[in-house]
Protein backbone atom coordinates (compact mmCIF):
# COMPACT_ATOMS: atom_id res chain seq x y z
CA UNK A 1 0.00 0.00 0.00
CA UNK A 2 1.34 3.39 -0.94
CA UNK A 3 0.75 6.20 1.48
CA UNK A 4 2.07 9.73 1.50
CA UNK A 5 0.81 10.48 -2.00
CA UNK A 6 -0.73 13.67 -3.24
CA UNK A 7 -4.20 13.64 -1.61
CA UNK A 8 -2.67 12.38 1.60
CA UNK A 9 -0.47 15.44 1.79
CA UNK A 10 -3.40 17.80 1.59
CA UNK A 11 -5.40 15.80 4.07
CA UNK A 12 -2.84 15.68 6.81
CA UNK A 13 -1.12 19.00 6.48
CA UNK A 14 -1.77 21.49 9.23
CA UNK A 15 -1.03 24.23 6.66
CA UNK A 16 -3.66 23.72 3.97
CA UNK A 17 -3.65 27.23 2.55
CA UNK A 18 0.11 27.74 2.53
CA UNK A 19 0.44 24.45 0.63
CA UNK A 20 -1.72 25.77 -2.19
CA UNK A 21 0.52 28.81 -2.14
CA UNK A 22 3.56 26.53 -2.28
CA UNK A 23 2.28 24.78 -5.38
CA UNK A 24 1.38 27.84 -7.39
CA UNK A 25 4.18 30.14 -6.46
CA UNK A 26 7.91 29.86 -6.82
CA UNK A 27 8.33 32.08 -3.80
CA UNK A 28 8.41 29.37 -1.15
CA UNK A 29 10.03 30.31 2.08
CA UNK A 30 11.91 27.74 4.12
CA UNK A 31 12.89 28.08 7.72
CA UNK A 32 15.88 25.84 8.38
CA UNK A 33 17.60 25.04 11.67
CA UNK A 34 21.14 23.67 11.62
CA UNK A 35 22.32 21.95 14.81
CA UNK A 36 26.05 22.35 15.29
CA UNK A 37 28.45 21.23 17.97
CA UNK A 38 31.89 22.38 18.99
CA UNK A 39 34.25 19.46 19.60
CA UNK A 40 37.96 18.93 20.31
CA UNK A 41 39.83 19.11 16.99
CA UNK A 42 41.60 16.07 15.54
CA UNK A 43 44.96 17.62 16.51
CA UNK A 44 43.87 18.52 20.05
CA UNK A 45 45.50 17.04 23.16
CA UNK A 46 42.96 15.04 25.16
CA UNK A 47 44.15 14.88 28.77
CA UNK A 48 41.79 12.90 30.99
CA UNK A 49 40.49 14.69 34.11
CA UNK A 50 41.71 13.48 37.52
CA UNK A 51 38.27 12.04 38.34
CA UNK A 52 38.27 10.30 34.87
CA UNK A 53 34.75 11.54 34.04
CA UNK A 54 35.76 13.52 30.93
CA UNK A 55 38.74 15.25 29.33
CA UNK A 56 40.25 18.47 30.64
CA UNK A 57 38.56 20.90 28.28
CA UNK A 58 40.79 23.77 29.46
CA UNK A 59 43.70 22.14 27.62
CA UNK A 60 41.79 21.06 24.50
CA UNK A 61 41.50 23.06 21.29
CA UNK A 62 37.99 23.19 19.86
CA UNK A 63 36.65 23.28 16.30
CA UNK A 64 33.32 23.02 14.53
CA UNK A 65 32.31 19.34 14.52
CA UNK A 66 33.53 18.46 10.97
CA UNK A 67 30.28 16.74 9.79
CA UNK A 68 28.29 19.86 10.79
CA UNK A 69 30.05 21.92 8.09
CA UNK A 70 28.20 19.83 5.49
CA UNK A 71 24.85 20.43 7.23
CA UNK A 72 25.43 24.20 7.25
CA UNK A 73 26.42 24.17 3.58
CA UNK A 74 23.35 22.13 2.63
CA UNK A 75 21.06 24.57 4.49
CA UNK A 76 22.63 27.55 2.71
CA UNK A 77 22.35 25.79 -0.67
CA UNK A 78 18.65 25.05 -0.09
CA UNK A 79 17.96 28.65 0.87
CA UNK A 80 19.87 29.97 -2.13
CA UNK A 81 18.07 27.64 -4.51
CA UNK A 82 14.63 28.53 -3.20
CA UNK A 83 15.54 32.18 -2.99
CA UNK A 84 13.85 32.94 0.27
CA UNK A 85 14.07 31.67 3.82
CA UNK A 86 16.00 31.72 7.01
CA UNK A 87 18.93 29.61 8.23
CA UNK A 88 19.37 29.50 12.00
CA UNK A 89 22.51 28.03 13.60
CA UNK A 90 21.81 26.39 16.96
CA UNK A 91 24.39 25.06 19.39
CA UNK A 92 24.55 23.94 23.01
CA UNK A 93 27.52 24.31 25.31
CA UNK A 94 29.56 26.76 27.37
CA UNK A 95 30.24 30.28 26.03
CA UNK A 96 33.04 28.95 23.76
CA UNK A 97 30.43 27.50 21.35
CA UNK A 98 29.46 31.00 20.20
CA UNK A 99 32.57 30.77 18.03
CA UNK A 100 31.05 28.01 15.87
CA UNK A 101 27.69 29.80 15.74
CA UNK A 102 29.55 32.91 14.43
CA UNK A 103 31.32 30.71 11.89
CA UNK A 104 27.91 29.64 10.53
CA UNK A 105 26.72 33.26 10.50
CA UNK A 106 29.88 34.33 8.65
CA UNK A 107 29.13 31.73 5.97
CA UNK A 108 25.71 33.25 5.43
CA UNK A 109 23.29 31.97 8.09
CA UNK A 110 20.83 34.57 9.34
CA UNK A 111 20.89 34.25 13.12
CA UNK A 112 21.97 32.00 15.96
CA UNK A 113 20.62 30.44 19.13
CA UNK A 114 22.96 29.44 21.94
CA UNK A 115 21.69 27.02 24.58
CA UNK A 116 24.02 27.82 27.44
CA UNK A 117 25.58 25.12 29.61
CA UNK A 118 27.31 25.71 32.89
CA UNK A 119 30.21 23.51 33.92
CA UNK A 120 30.67 20.20 32.13
CA UNK A 121 28.85 19.40 28.92
CA UNK A 122 25.84 17.09 29.00
CA UNK A 123 26.51 13.86 27.10
CA UNK A 124 23.03 12.30 27.42
CA UNK A 125 21.39 12.53 23.97
CA UNK A 126 17.81 12.32 25.32
CA UNK A 127 18.31 15.20 27.80
CA UNK A 128 20.04 17.25 25.12
CA UNK A 129 17.27 16.59 22.61
CA UNK A 130 14.69 17.70 25.19
CA UNK A 131 16.66 20.91 25.75
CA UNK A 132 16.82 21.63 22.02
CA UNK A 133 13.15 20.75 21.55
CA UNK A 134 12.05 23.14 24.30
CA UNK A 135 13.68 25.95 22.34
CA UNK A 136 12.91 24.76 18.79
CA UNK A 137 9.21 24.02 19.21
CA UNK A 138 8.08 27.66 19.13
CA UNK A 139 10.18 28.36 16.02
CA UNK A 140 8.19 26.05 13.68
CA UNK A 141 11.10 25.05 11.45
CA UNK A 142 10.41 23.35 8.11
CA UNK A 143 13.74 21.53 8.29
CA UNK A 144 16.13 20.63 11.09
CA UNK A 145 19.52 19.60 9.68
CA UNK A 146 22.38 18.03 11.59
CA UNK A 147 25.69 16.35 10.82
CA UNK A 148 25.73 12.54 10.91
CA UNK A 149 27.44 12.38 14.30
CA UNK A 150 29.72 14.32 16.59
CA UNK A 151 33.45 13.65 16.75
CA UNK A 152 33.44 13.79 20.57
CA UNK A 153 30.82 11.37 21.95
CA UNK A 154 29.64 10.05 18.57
CA UNK A 155 26.13 9.20 19.78
CA UNK A 156 24.76 9.90 16.28
CA UNK A 157 21.12 10.30 17.30
CA UNK A 158 20.32 13.78 18.63
CA UNK A 159 18.92 15.12 15.34
CA UNK A 160 16.56 12.14 14.99
CA UNK A 161 15.51 12.34 18.66
CA UNK A 162 14.59 16.00 18.16
CA UNK A 163 12.72 15.19 14.95
CA UNK A 164 10.58 12.63 16.77
CA UNK A 165 9.99 15.00 19.69
CA UNK A 166 8.81 17.70 17.28
CA UNK A 167 6.58 15.25 15.39
CA UNK A 168 8.66 15.59 12.21
CA UNK A 169 9.45 12.97 9.58
CA UNK A 170 13.10 11.91 9.73
CA UNK A 171 15.84 10.59 7.47
CA UNK A 172 19.55 10.01 8.04
CA UNK A 173 22.80 9.93 6.07
CA UNK A 174 21.43 12.16 3.31
CA UNK A 175 23.65 12.23 0.21
CA UNK A 176 21.38 14.58 -1.75
CA UNK A 177 18.23 16.54 -0.93
CA UNK A 178 15.61 17.98 -3.27
CA UNK A 179 12.92 20.30 -1.99
CA UNK A 180 9.57 19.62 -3.64
CA UNK A 181 7.49 21.54 -1.15
CA UNK A 182 5.60 20.35 0.83
CA UNK A 183 7.75 17.23 0.49
CA UNK A 184 11.48 16.68 0.56
CA UNK A 185 13.18 13.97 -1.49
CA UNK A 186 16.27 12.55 0.21
CA UNK A 187 18.88 10.19 -1.22
CA UNK A 188 19.81 8.05 1.77
CA UNK A 189 23.07 6.17 1.93
CA UNK A 190 22.56 2.50 2.79
CA UNK A 191 25.40 0.07 3.39
CA UNK A 192 27.81 -1.62 0.93
CA UNK A 193 27.45 1.01 -1.79
CA UNK A 194 23.62 1.01 -1.92
CA UNK A 195 21.40 4.10 -1.92
CA UNK A 196 17.69 4.81 -1.71
CA UNK A 197 15.51 7.80 -2.49
CA UNK A 198 12.87 8.55 0.13
CA UNK A 199 10.18 11.20 -0.18
CA UNK A 200 9.12 12.68 3.14
CA UNK A 201 6.36 15.02 4.15
CA UNK A 202 7.86 18.14 5.74
CA UNK A 203 8.55 19.33 8.38
CA UNK A 204 11.54 16.98 8.57
CA UNK A 205 14.68 16.39 10.57
CA UNK A 206 17.49 15.20 8.30
CA UNK A 207 21.01 14.12 9.19
CA UNK A 208 23.54 14.93 6.49
CA UNK A 209 26.25 12.53 5.33
CA UNK A 210 29.70 14.08 5.11
CA UNK A 211 31.05 14.67 1.63
CA UNK A 212 27.73 15.44 -0.12
CA UNK A 213 28.77 19.04 -0.85
CA UNK A 214 31.83 21.29 -0.61
CA UNK A 215 31.50 23.52 2.44
CA UNK A 216 32.30 27.15 1.65
CA UNK A 217 34.73 29.34 3.53
CA UNK A 218 33.38 32.54 5.05
CA UNK A 219 34.21 35.68 3.05
CA UNK A 220 35.75 38.71 4.72
CA UNK A 221 32.44 40.52 4.18
CA UNK A 222 30.65 37.58 5.75
CA UNK A 223 32.93 37.63 8.79
CA UNK A 224 32.37 41.36 9.26
CA UNK A 225 28.61 41.01 8.75
CA UNK A 226 28.35 38.12 11.22
CA UNK A 227 29.31 40.42 14.07
CA UNK A 228 26.04 42.30 13.66
CA UNK A 229 23.84 39.18 13.45
CA UNK A 230 21.76 38.15 16.43
CA UNK A 231 22.70 35.24 18.72
CA UNK A 232 19.90 34.56 21.18
CA UNK A 233 21.23 33.10 24.44
CA UNK A 234 19.00 30.67 26.35
CA UNK A 235 20.26 30.26 29.94
CA UNK A 236 20.89 26.72 31.22
CA UNK A 237 18.16 27.04 33.84
CA UNK A 238 15.59 27.56 31.05
CA UNK A 239 16.35 24.38 29.08
CA UNK A 240 18.26 21.97 31.34
CA UNK A 241 15.24 20.78 33.24
CA UNK A 242 15.38 17.09 32.36
CA UNK A 243 16.64 14.06 34.22
CA UNK A 244 19.52 12.09 32.74
CA UNK A 245 18.85 8.80 30.95
CA UNK A 246 22.48 7.77 30.42
CA UNK A 247 25.88 9.05 31.45
CA UNK A 248 29.59 8.55 30.90
CA UNK A 249 31.05 7.00 34.04
CA UNK A 250 34.68 6.78 33.07
CA UNK A 251 37.00 7.84 30.26
CA UNK A 252 40.19 5.86 29.63
CA UNK A 253 42.95 5.21 27.11
CA UNK A 254 42.23 2.02 25.11
CA UNK A 255 44.60 -0.86 25.73
CA UNK A 256 45.60 -2.43 22.45
CA UNK A 257 45.59 -6.19 22.71
CA UNK A 258 47.63 -6.55 19.55
CA UNK A 259 51.40 -6.93 19.53
CA UNK A 260 52.43 -4.57 16.77
CA UNK A 261 55.77 -5.07 15.03
CA UNK A 262 57.13 -1.63 14.16
CA UNK A 263 59.26 -1.31 11.04
CA UNK A 264 61.25 1.84 10.39
CA UNK A 265 64.25 2.83 8.32
CA UNK A 266 65.15 3.77 4.77
CA UNK A 267 62.88 2.59 1.96
CA UNK A 268 65.19 -0.26 0.82
CA UNK A 269 65.52 -1.87 4.24
CA UNK A 270 61.78 -1.41 4.93
CA UNK A 271 60.91 -3.10 1.63
CA UNK A 272 63.14 -6.12 2.30
CA UNK A 273 61.58 -6.49 5.76
CA UNK A 274 58.07 -6.32 4.26
CA UNK A 275 58.98 -8.99 1.69
CA UNK A 276 60.26 -11.25 4.49
CA UNK A 277 57.03 -10.81 6.44
CA UNK A 278 54.89 -11.59 3.39
CA UNK A 279 56.98 -14.69 2.64
CA UNK A 280 57.85 -16.12 6.04
CA UNK A 281 55.28 -14.82 8.53
CA UNK A 282 52.02 -14.38 6.64
CA UNK A 283 53.02 -16.72 3.78
CA UNK A 284 51.03 -14.97 1.08
CA UNK A 285 53.72 -14.80 -1.59
Amino acid at each position, binding site marked *: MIVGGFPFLFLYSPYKLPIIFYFFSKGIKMKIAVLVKQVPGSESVLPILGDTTWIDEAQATFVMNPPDNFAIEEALLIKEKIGEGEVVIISMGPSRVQKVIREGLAKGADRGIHLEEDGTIETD*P*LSNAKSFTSVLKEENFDLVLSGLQS*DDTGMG*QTGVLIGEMLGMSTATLAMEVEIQSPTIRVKRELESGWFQWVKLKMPSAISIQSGLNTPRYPSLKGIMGAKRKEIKVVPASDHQTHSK*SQSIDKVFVPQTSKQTVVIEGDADSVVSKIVNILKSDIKVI
Partner: protein
Amino acid sequence: MDILVVLEDNRGSLHRMSKEAIVGAQKMGGSISVLAIGNNANGLANELSNIDISEVITVNHDLVSTYSADGYSEVVKQVIEAESPSTILIGHSYQTRDYIPRVSTKLDIPFIPDIISMENGLVKQILNSKLNATISAATDQKILSFQSSAFSEEAMMPGNCSSRSFNVDLDSSLVRSESEDPFQEAAADVDLESAELIISVGRGIEKEDNIPIVFELAKVMGAEVGASRPVVDSGWLPSFRQIGSSGQTVSPKLYLALGISGAIQHVVGMKGSKNILAINKDADAPIFEIADYAVIGDVLEIIPKLTETLKG
Protein backbone atom coordinates in the same frame (compact mmCIF):
# COMPACT_ATOMS: atom_id res chain seq x y z
CA MET B 1 11.52 -11.49 28.64
CA ASP B 2 15.03 -10.35 29.54
CA ILE B 3 16.44 -9.43 26.14
CA LEU B 4 14.83 -8.45 22.86
CA VAL B 5 17.12 -8.54 19.81
CA VAL B 6 15.74 -6.57 16.86
CA LEU B 7 16.73 -8.16 13.55
CA GLU B 8 17.50 -6.53 10.22
CA ASP B 9 16.71 -7.88 6.78
CA ASN B 10 19.66 -7.31 4.46
CA ARG B 11 18.08 -7.69 1.00
CA GLY B 12 16.49 -11.05 1.73
CA SER B 13 18.67 -12.52 4.44
CA LEU B 14 19.62 -11.85 8.02
CA HIS B 15 22.08 -8.96 8.43
CA ARG B 16 25.50 -10.06 9.71
CA MET B 17 25.25 -7.54 12.55
CA SER B 18 21.94 -9.10 13.68
CA LYS B 19 23.78 -12.41 14.17
CA GLU B 20 26.51 -10.59 16.09
CA ALA B 21 23.82 -8.99 18.30
CA ILE B 22 22.40 -12.45 19.06
CA VAL B 23 25.90 -13.54 20.13
CA GLY B 24 26.02 -10.48 22.40
CA ALA B 25 22.64 -11.47 23.85
CA GLN B 26 23.80 -15.05 24.46
CA LYS B 27 26.88 -13.72 26.27
CA MET B 28 24.68 -11.48 28.46
CA GLY B 29 22.49 -14.43 29.44
CA GLY B 30 18.79 -14.60 30.26
CA SER B 31 15.78 -15.30 28.08
CA ILE B 32 16.23 -14.02 24.54
CA SER B 33 13.47 -13.14 22.11
CA VAL B 34 14.23 -11.81 18.66
CA LEU B 35 11.98 -9.59 16.55
CA ALA B 36 11.67 -9.93 12.77
CA ILE B 37 9.68 -7.26 10.89
CA GLY B 38 8.49 -7.06 7.31
CA ASN B 39 7.48 -9.27 4.40
CA ASN B 40 10.53 -11.49 4.96
CA ALA B 41 9.94 -11.89 8.73
CA ASN B 42 9.28 -15.62 8.39
CA GLY B 43 12.38 -16.05 6.25
CA LEU B 44 14.52 -14.43 8.94
CA ALA B 45 12.83 -16.59 11.59
CA ASN B 46 13.72 -19.72 9.58
CA GLU B 47 17.38 -18.72 9.49
CA LEU B 48 17.38 -18.86 13.30
CA SER B 49 15.40 -22.08 13.80
CA ASN B 50 18.46 -23.96 15.10
CA ILE B 51 19.87 -21.20 17.28
CA ASP B 52 19.75 -21.14 21.07
CA ILE B 53 17.17 -18.43 21.73
CA SER B 54 13.71 -18.57 23.31
CA GLU B 55 11.59 -17.39 20.41
CA VAL B 56 11.31 -15.41 17.23
CA ILE B 57 8.51 -12.84 17.21
CA THR B 58 7.35 -11.97 13.70
CA VAL B 59 5.48 -8.85 12.64
CA ASN B 60 4.09 -8.56 9.15
CA HIS B 61 1.62 -5.84 8.29
CA ASP B 62 0.93 -3.99 5.05
CA LEU B 63 2.28 -0.74 6.48
CA VAL B 64 5.63 -2.29 7.46
CA SER B 65 6.16 -4.83 4.67
CA THR B 66 9.26 -2.83 3.75
CA TYR B 67 11.38 -0.51 5.89
CA SER B 68 10.37 2.98 6.90
CA ALA B 69 11.57 4.88 9.96
CA ASP B 70 7.96 5.80 10.83
CA GLY B 71 6.67 2.23 10.55
CA TYR B 72 9.52 0.28 12.11
CA SER B 73 9.95 2.62 15.07
CA GLU B 74 6.24 2.26 15.90
CA VAL B 75 6.38 -1.56 15.64
CA VAL B 76 9.45 -1.85 17.89
CA LYS B 77 7.82 0.52 20.37
CA GLN B 78 4.63 -1.58 20.52
CA VAL B 79 6.55 -4.83 20.99
CA ILE B 80 8.67 -3.33 23.80
CA GLU B 81 5.54 -1.98 25.51
CA ALA B 82 3.78 -5.34 25.31
CA GLU B 83 6.72 -7.60 26.19
CA SER B 84 8.71 -5.36 28.61
CA PRO B 85 12.25 -6.59 27.85
CA SER B 86 14.85 -5.08 30.18
CA THR B 87 17.43 -4.78 27.39
CA ILE B 88 16.90 -4.22 23.68
CA LEU B 89 19.89 -5.20 21.52
CA ILE B 90 20.59 -4.42 17.88
CA GLY B 91 23.54 -4.13 15.49
CA HIS B 92 24.80 -0.57 14.94
CA SER B 93 23.88 -0.54 11.26
CA TYR B 94 22.84 2.43 9.15
CA GLN B 95 19.20 1.32 9.47
CA THR B 96 19.54 1.23 13.26
CA ARG B 97 20.84 4.78 13.24
CA ASP B 98 17.86 5.77 11.07
CA TYR B 99 15.01 4.65 13.34
CA ILE B 100 16.14 3.40 16.77
CA PRO B 101 16.51 6.99 18.12
CA ARG B 102 12.79 7.37 17.34
CA VAL B 103 12.03 4.37 19.58
CA SER B 104 14.20 5.88 22.30
CA THR B 105 12.13 9.08 22.18
CA LYS B 106 8.76 7.34 22.01
CA LEU B 107 9.47 5.30 25.14
CA ASP B 108 11.82 7.75 26.87
CA ILE B 109 14.48 5.08 27.35
CA PRO B 110 18.15 5.65 26.50
CA PHE B 111 19.78 4.44 23.29
CA ILE B 112 23.45 3.68 24.04
CA PRO B 113 25.00 3.22 20.60
CA ASP B 114 28.06 1.60 19.04
CA ILE B 115 29.15 -0.53 22.01
CA ILE B 116 32.44 -2.38 21.41
CA SER B 117 32.59 -4.45 24.60
CA MET B 118 30.53 -5.41 27.66
CA GLU B 119 33.48 -6.38 29.83
CA ASN B 120 33.75 -4.02 32.82
CA GLY B 121 30.71 -2.01 31.74
CA LEU B 122 29.38 -0.86 28.39
CA VAL B 123 32.38 0.43 26.48
CA LYS B 124 32.11 2.92 23.62
CA GLN B 125 34.81 4.66 21.61
CA ILE B 126 34.86 8.45 21.87
CA LEU B 127 36.90 11.36 20.48
CA ASN B 128 37.75 9.76 17.13
CA SER B 129 38.54 6.40 18.80
CA LYS B 130 41.42 7.97 20.71
CA LEU B 131 39.71 7.29 24.05
CA ASN B 132 37.14 4.83 25.37
CA ALA B 133 34.29 5.52 27.76
CA THR B 134 32.11 3.33 29.95
CA ILE B 135 28.48 4.33 29.80
CA SER B 136 25.59 3.45 32.08
CA ALA B 137 21.85 3.90 31.83
CA ALA B 138 19.92 5.68 34.55
CA THR B 139 16.77 3.74 33.68
CA ASP B 140 15.82 0.06 34.08
CA GLN B 141 15.21 -0.38 30.37
CA LYS B 142 17.82 0.45 27.78
CA ILE B 143 18.57 0.02 24.08
CA LEU B 144 22.12 -0.97 23.13
CA SER B 145 23.64 -1.25 19.69
CA PHE B 146 26.86 -3.14 19.00
CA GLN B 147 29.59 -1.94 16.68
CA SER B 148 30.21 -4.14 13.66
CA SER B 149 32.37 -7.15 14.68
CA ALA B 150 31.99 -6.49 18.43
CA PHE B 151 31.13 -10.20 18.48
CA SER B 152 31.83 -12.94 15.98
CA GLU B 153 28.75 -14.36 14.24
CA GLU B 154 30.45 -17.79 14.25
CA ALA B 155 30.02 -17.82 18.03
CA MET B 156 26.19 -18.11 17.78
CA MET B 157 25.25 -21.01 20.04
CA PRO B 158 23.05 -23.67 18.42
CA GLY B 159 19.82 -24.88 19.98
CA ASN B 160 16.21 -24.49 19.06
CA CYS B 161 13.50 -21.91 19.33
CA SER B 162 9.83 -21.34 18.73
CA SER B 163 8.18 -18.69 16.60
CA ARG B 164 5.03 -16.63 17.05
CA SER B 165 3.47 -13.69 15.30
CA PHE B 166 2.69 -10.43 17.06
CA ASN B 167 -0.29 -8.28 16.11
CA VAL B 168 0.52 -4.61 15.79
CA ASP B 169 -2.03 -1.82 15.81
CA LEU B 170 -1.01 0.63 13.09
CA ASP B 171 -2.88 3.65 11.80
CA SER B 172 -2.93 4.15 8.04
CA SER B 173 -1.54 7.69 8.46
CA LEU B 174 1.53 6.34 10.29
CA VAL B 175 3.99 6.21 7.40
CA ARG B 176 4.74 9.71 6.10
CA SER B 177 7.28 8.63 3.52
CA GLU B 178 7.46 6.89 0.16
CA SER B 179 10.59 4.84 -0.48
CA GLU B 180 11.93 4.03 -3.91
CA ASP B 181 13.85 0.82 -4.62
CA PRO B 182 17.44 0.71 -3.34
CA PHE B 183 20.10 0.99 -6.06
CA GLN B 184 23.86 0.82 -6.58
CA GLU B 185 25.65 3.63 -8.42
CA ALA B 186 28.36 1.47 -9.91
CA ALA B 187 28.09 -2.25 -10.47
CA ALA B 188 30.83 -4.10 -8.62
CA ASP B 189 33.35 -5.99 -10.73
CA VAL B 190 35.42 -7.20 -7.79
CA ASP B 191 34.53 -9.49 -4.91
CA LEU B 192 36.32 -7.91 -1.97
CA GLU B 193 34.43 -9.91 0.66
CA SER B 194 35.93 -13.20 -0.47
CA ALA B 195 39.39 -11.87 -1.42
CA GLU B 196 42.35 -13.39 0.43
CA LEU B 197 44.67 -10.46 -0.23
CA ILE B 198 43.50 -6.86 -0.22
CA ILE B 199 45.62 -3.80 -0.88
CA SER B 200 43.71 -0.79 0.30
CA VAL B 201 44.57 2.78 -0.51
CA GLY B 202 43.92 5.94 1.49
CA ARG B 203 44.47 9.66 1.30
CA GLY B 204 48.23 9.11 1.73
CA ILE B 205 48.41 8.25 -1.97
CA GLU B 206 48.04 12.03 -2.42
CA LYS B 207 46.62 12.20 -5.97
CA GLU B 208 44.75 10.24 -8.61
CA ASP B 209 47.88 10.03 -10.78
CA ASN B 210 49.46 7.80 -8.13
CA ILE B 211 46.66 5.19 -8.15
CA PRO B 212 48.24 3.06 -10.95
CA ILE B 213 51.25 2.16 -8.74
CA VAL B 214 48.78 0.51 -6.34
CA PHE B 215 47.31 -1.61 -9.14
CA GLU B 216 50.81 -2.61 -10.26
CA LEU B 217 51.59 -3.89 -6.78
CA ALA B 218 48.20 -5.64 -6.62
CA LYS B 219 48.95 -7.36 -9.92
CA VAL B 220 52.28 -8.82 -8.80
CA MET B 221 50.77 -9.93 -5.48
CA GLY B 222 47.49 -11.24 -6.92
CA ALA B 223 45.52 -8.95 -4.63
CA GLU B 224 42.28 -7.00 -4.98
CA VAL B 225 42.32 -3.22 -4.53
CA GLY B 226 40.15 -1.53 -1.92
CA ALA B 227 39.91 2.08 -0.79
CA SER B 228 39.02 4.33 2.11
CA ARG B 229 36.16 6.79 1.85
CA PRO B 230 38.20 9.94 1.06
CA VAL B 231 39.69 8.23 -2.01
CA VAL B 232 36.21 7.27 -3.25
CA ASP B 233 34.76 10.70 -2.42
CA SER B 234 37.56 12.28 -4.48
CA GLY B 235 36.50 10.11 -7.41
CA TRP B 236 39.88 8.36 -7.66
CA LEU B 237 38.31 4.90 -7.29
CA PRO B 238 34.67 3.70 -7.69
CA SER B 239 32.44 3.23 -4.64
CA PHE B 240 32.31 -0.57 -4.95
CA ARG B 241 35.95 -0.61 -3.81
CA GLN B 242 35.15 1.24 -0.60
CA ILE B 243 35.81 -0.58 2.66
CA GLY B 244 34.26 0.56 5.91
CA SER B 245 30.92 1.35 7.51
CA SER B 246 29.47 2.73 4.28
CA GLY B 247 31.27 0.19 2.09
CA GLN B 248 32.26 -3.45 2.30
CA THR B 249 33.26 -5.43 5.37
CA VAL B 250 36.25 -7.64 4.67
CA SER B 251 38.39 -10.18 6.53
CA PRO B 252 41.20 -11.27 4.20
CA LYS B 253 44.34 -13.19 5.14
CA LEU B 254 46.33 -10.00 4.49
CA TYR B 255 45.08 -6.42 4.56
CA LEU B 256 47.76 -4.09 3.28
CA ALA B 257 46.73 -0.54 4.24
CA LEU B 258 48.57 2.08 2.19
CA GLY B 259 48.38 5.64 3.45
CA ILE B 260 45.19 4.98 5.41
CA SER B 261 44.93 6.95 8.65
CA GLY B 262 42.48 4.53 10.26
CA ALA B 263 39.30 6.52 10.95
CA ILE B 264 36.77 4.40 12.80
CA GLN B 265 34.46 4.39 9.75
CA HIS B 266 37.17 2.53 7.86
CA VAL B 267 38.40 0.33 10.69
CA VAL B 268 34.99 -1.27 11.32
CA GLY B 269 35.14 -2.66 7.80
CA MET B 270 38.55 -4.34 8.03
CA LYS B 271 39.49 -4.97 11.64
CA GLY B 272 38.53 -8.65 11.26
CA SER B 273 41.44 -9.20 8.82
CA LYS B 274 43.80 -12.04 9.83
CA ASN B 275 46.91 -9.91 9.27
CA ILE B 276 47.05 -6.15 8.95
CA LEU B 277 50.16 -4.49 7.54
CA ALA B 278 49.88 -0.71 7.49
CA ILE B 279 52.23 1.77 5.86
CA ASN B 280 51.91 5.40 6.87
CA LYS B 281 54.19 8.43 7.23
CA ASP B 282 52.46 9.47 10.46
CA ALA B 283 53.72 7.35 13.37
CA ASP B 284 50.61 8.39 15.35
CA ALA B 285 48.10 7.23 12.73
CA PRO B 286 45.30 5.27 14.49
CA ILE B 287 45.61 2.46 11.90
CA PHE B 288 48.81 1.37 13.68
CA GLU B 289 46.81 0.53 16.82
CA ILE B 290 45.09 -2.35 15.08
CA ALA B 291 48.02 -3.25 12.79
CA ASP B 292 50.10 -6.40 13.26
CA TYR B 293 52.89 -4.74 11.29
CA ALA B 294 53.36 -0.97 11.41
CA VAL B 295 55.61 0.39 8.68
CA ILE B 296 56.45 4.04 9.26
CA GLY B 297 57.33 5.45 5.89
CA ASP B 298 56.23 7.12 2.67
CA VAL B 299 53.92 4.93 0.59
CA LEU B 300 54.90 6.74 -2.60
CA GLU B 301 58.50 5.66 -2.07
CA ILE B 302 57.81 2.17 -0.71
CA ILE B 303 55.11 0.91 -3.13
CA PRO B 304 57.19 1.06 -6.37
CA LYS B 305 60.24 -0.47 -4.65
CA LEU B 306 58.09 -3.26 -3.20
CA THR B 307 56.58 -3.94 -6.64
CA GLU B 308 60.05 -4.07 -8.23
CA THR B 309 61.41 -6.41 -5.54
CA LEU B 310 58.44 -8.78 -5.84
CA LYS B 311 58.76 -8.80 -9.65
CA GLY B 312 62.45 -9.67 -9.42
